């Protein structure tokens, strides 16, 4: 919940000072950074899913990696929509805040889903990997 408050304050500051060149510059850097990190984490997740030996480890990678990278990319999108909006009226801010809501939704939903998958795997007795066994 704290992050949301922070984000809303951040958006309020940005919306006031949007036209100042330096703020434009910072926004650009921020968007590029979050996009880059997001894509990097996506890449890491897919490598993890492919490389990890068994069911649980793969899910560990998929669960965490997915959530973080989606949040980062969505953050970038909301900032970008703020930056590129021609007239900064109420609707564009509303659009950015909606993307924040989506971020919240994924923040809650994605880990729960991963937890459900792992619990189901655990209940159906998939044996975890020991260090010398072959991949399964």
């Amino acid at each position, binding site marked *: 919940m704290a992050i949301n408050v922070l984000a809303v304050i951040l958006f309020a500051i940005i919306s006031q000072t949007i036209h100042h060149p330096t703020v434009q510059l910072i926004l650009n850097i921020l968007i590029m950074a979050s996009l880059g990190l997001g894509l990097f984490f996506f890449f890491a997740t897919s490598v993890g899913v492919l490389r990890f030996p068994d069911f649980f480890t793969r899910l560990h990678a998929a669960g965490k990696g997915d959530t973080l990278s989606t949040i980062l990319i969505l953050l970038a999108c909301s900032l970008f929509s703020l930056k590129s909006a021609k007239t900064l009226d109420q609707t564009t801010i509303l659009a950015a805040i909606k993307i924040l809501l989506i971020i919240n939704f994924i923040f809650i939903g994605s880990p*729960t889903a991963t937890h*459900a998958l792992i619990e189901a795997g655990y209940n159906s007795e998939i044996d975890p990997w020991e260090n010398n066994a072959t991949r399964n």
Partner: protein
Amino acid sequence: MLLGIETLLLILVLILAVVSLWIRDLMSSVVVFGAYSFLMCLIWTGMGAVDVAFTEAAVGAGVSTVFFVAVLFNTTRRIQFNPLDLSAKIFSAILCIGTGYLLMLGLSDLPSWGDPQALVNTNVSKYYIESAYKQTKVPNLVTAVLADYRAFDTMFETCVVFIAVLGIFMLLKKDGREPLKETSAKANDNLIIRVASRFMVPFIQLFGLYVVAHGHYSPGGGFQGGVILGASLILVAMAFNIEFVKQLLSIKRMLLLAVIGVIIFAGWGLVPVFLGQSFLDYSAWAALLPGTGEIMARSHSMLAVEIGVAITVMCGMYGIYMSLVSDGRFDKGL
């Protein structure tokens, strides 16, 4: 839409389609099919048909994957697939190649994409573009055409959803004559999932209602909103168990609501007939709704009609899920 992405998506969709047919394990082919629907949704957005993309995402990717999984619980997971003998293979190959060739042949002299002189853009669609907003005050053209100009079609589409629900319900409902076989699914009582879903469901339903109400201004409408509402009920059914959900909305009430949804739509169109106008002519409602001109009467009735659709679709998705998952017994199941 960058050309590159379009072709990339089309190729990916093709691969996914072939893979989902090729895999022998049904569960994974269902997952691949879900992915296929998501990509189709991206292609629709690329082509600018956002409403269709929304529906494809909600129905194609979301709900039908859930239905497939529910069905898999009551049928086998592995395909017992006796390979076709050679003649059947050749025959179907010829059939597919023939249809493909015919489709290609037809393409050769179609008008190019969006070219202004082609009849397809000058004939009916130009009229809609120019006069839809003037006549119905509804910025989202798709909903205007859907709910007013061709409302008769949409009414029958809602009937199709209703028939689907009723058909599945009637066919699967056990009438006590056949012996009941034990279903493999057992309700889960995982606390974390329950808490998370109990937290999320209200927001989902709120979003569903928003989509229904907001159909006039942004992509969405009765159908997509109904699916989201139905999905929320299914989420509750999955998180808790069927008994819990049945207290929320019993099967009899579900069927009743499904019919009432269609009756709202058809009834709304019938009133103008009593007032002497033609069926589904919303301007007749101007007389009944206080203080609305003919044009505003149209947009309000479109909303009413969308609500009817949403109710039927919500009960439809929920009903189908309940029938499939409990194989017609409505007592235990996922």
